[in-house]
């Protein structure tokens, strides 16, 4: 099993699928000749040519719609939206066309498209380049939403998303493309549904996804070493559908829950997980579940303000201690 970077894992998934199926194409801004802002499509233009590796104009609504139209005829486009902030411009096509086409055509048409996009707060990118928008995508019927927390997931989720006949939105993180991790040498398909137990524990469940899985893992380490609290970490790589059974199973074991999200709290992943806990296993709870989330502000440019807006592992530790009456 090789240690590779997350961008390399994404590139490998593209390459394998494009080599296998001539109907798999990719498109986006600067993905071809320039090799991709995050290198996720590096070398593909040289290998597969301009008809299948398309450098698009800066027209997110236009090229996303074009990809969806092509998918109606069996083409399997992988669309890179350079930053999730720009996805607002493409949402009409993603939501009104891709997500609804199967239903409103009575099952006659489908849009097997993959939309990949880098989200999350990086470093001082300001209000219009730092959005976390998973909350918007996960509320849309007909659209699957997955979000990798490591290179293995990034590779396997993209492979499964390309093969799936549903439109899939893959929420990546700008700070994670150079993260290293083990990826199987042989072909691997990660399930598009469910959740992973990233760390087993007995006293409290920490729910994370994408970058917040890493805050939870770090917090679990501190809680174990310094406070003797055994935390279980659940990696919610699928945000739509959410893994109700997995959430129920873990909370029924630990009886306490903290949800960590980089997004703002209102109408978010945390709210949704708490609703699921209420619906599935309310009487298993020993304490009210807690959300760890960013401040409800447009992302500030100033470094100190930015740091104050975005949570990290320390906020997760604090939330757990509060839950145990230790803070």
């Amino acid at each position, binding site marked *: 099993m090789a240690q590779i970077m997350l961008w390399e894992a994404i590139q490998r998934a593209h390459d394998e699928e494009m080599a296998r199926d001539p109907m798999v194409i990719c498109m986006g801004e600067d993905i071809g000749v320039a090799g991709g802002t995050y290198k996720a499509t590096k070398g593909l233009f040289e290998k597969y040519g301009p008809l299948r590796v398309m450098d698009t104009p800066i027209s997110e609504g236009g090229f996303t719609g074009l990809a969806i139209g092509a998918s109606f*005829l069996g*083409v399997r486009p992988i669309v890179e939206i350079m930053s999730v902030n720009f996805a607002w411009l493409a949402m009409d096509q993603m939501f009104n066309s891709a997500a609804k086409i199967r239903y409103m*055509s009575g099952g*006659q048409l489908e849009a097997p498209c993959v939309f990949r996009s880098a989200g999350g707060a990086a470093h001082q990118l300001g209000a219009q380049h730092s959005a976390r928008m998973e909350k918007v995508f996960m509320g849309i019927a007909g659209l699957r939403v997955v979000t990798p927390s490591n290179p293995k997931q990034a590779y*396997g989720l993209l492979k*499964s998303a390309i093969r799936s006949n549903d439109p899939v939105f893959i929420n990546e993180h700008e700070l994670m493309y150079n993260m290293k991790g083990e990826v199987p040498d042989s072909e691997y398909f990660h399930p598009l549904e469910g959740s992973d137990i990233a760390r087993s524990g007995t006293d409290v469940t920490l729910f994370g996804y994408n970058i917040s899985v890493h805050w939870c893992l770090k917090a679990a380490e501190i809680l174990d070493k310094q406070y003797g609290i055994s935390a279980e970490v659940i990696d919610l790589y699928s945000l739509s559908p959410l893994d109700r059974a997995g959430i129920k199973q873990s909370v029924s074991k630990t009886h306490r829950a903290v949800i960590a999200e980089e997004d703002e709290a209102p109408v978010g992943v945390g709210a949704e997980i708490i609703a699921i806990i209420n619906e599935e296993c309310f009487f298993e709870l020993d304490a009210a579940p807690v959300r760890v989330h960013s401040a409800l502000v447009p992302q500030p440019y100033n470094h100190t303000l930015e740091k104050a807006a975005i949570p990290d592992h320390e906020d997760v530790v604090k939330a757990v201690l509060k839950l145990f009456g230790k803070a």
Partner: protein
Amino acid sequence: MKIEDKKRVLREMVLHRRFEERCYQAYIERKIGGFLHLYPGQEACCNGVMEAARPGHDYVITGYRDHVHAIKCGSDPKAVMAELYGKETGSSKGRGGSMHIFDAAHRFMGGYALVGGPFPLAAGIAKAIQLKGGDEIAICFLGDAANNQGVFHETLNMAALWNLPVLFVCENNRYGIGTSIERSTAVVHQHKRVAAYNIEASECDGQDVEVVYEHARKAVDHVRSGKGPYFLELMTYRYRGHSMSDSRGYRTREEEELWKQRDPIFILRDRLIAAGELTMEAYEALEKETDAYIENEVIKFSEESPEPRVEDLEKYVLADRASQQQWLTGQAA
């Protein structure tokens, strides 16, 4: 056009007109719900273009005024009406409604209700044709008001840049919902706006089906022969309001009467009569036959068809699970 084709097109246009007028009645009777956008007045546009193209072979996509386009592509009028009735036997199994007629078997890729939304979808269909190497073309029928959306310009740019086999047909009926083109658009003649993208474009009378056909032949040949996109603007008029909730307070009855004197069906009818190919009696008989067919077959079928089952409410949201097992669970089926 050959004489037998003209006679057939007249029959089809009468069916299209009477079908739409019967929809109006069914809407008043509350058999049809939601929004209903009717086509009378514009029949020569769809018919002229599709006579020059290959219905059922070429891919067609349009907006929400879509019943006639579907029928012209080969859809059974019974399935279209049953869709308006919300029945399981409808084109989209009652899930779509008037604005979302689909018929993939006849390559009618659907009606869409976001103004301008089909532009990039049409270019994408053309992209798929280009990748697969077929001789089909994509035809996108939309109204003039759609051209004020950003995706119009984004799509024209990409279609020209990548030489995509797509024909844009602009049915310029002079109104975007209830706002006249003069009050919404800086340039009334839409083909002029396309020049900026190096796309071949032309404009013609959209009321005379033979004129539309001649212009469309040139446009279709251009696209099919690999010369890239084409934009054809047809000057036309819709007799009814934008939808059924529209009392047409934004225009005069005199203007409507003026356009009705250039009715696409009557232009063709009178030309056939003048040529001795048709009599007024035969035409009137055709109208009666058409009404009888709509009543005895189309409406009867729609009335008698079953409703979708409530148990199937969530069917068609996502792909059938059995076929997706490996990707959903990581385990082969």
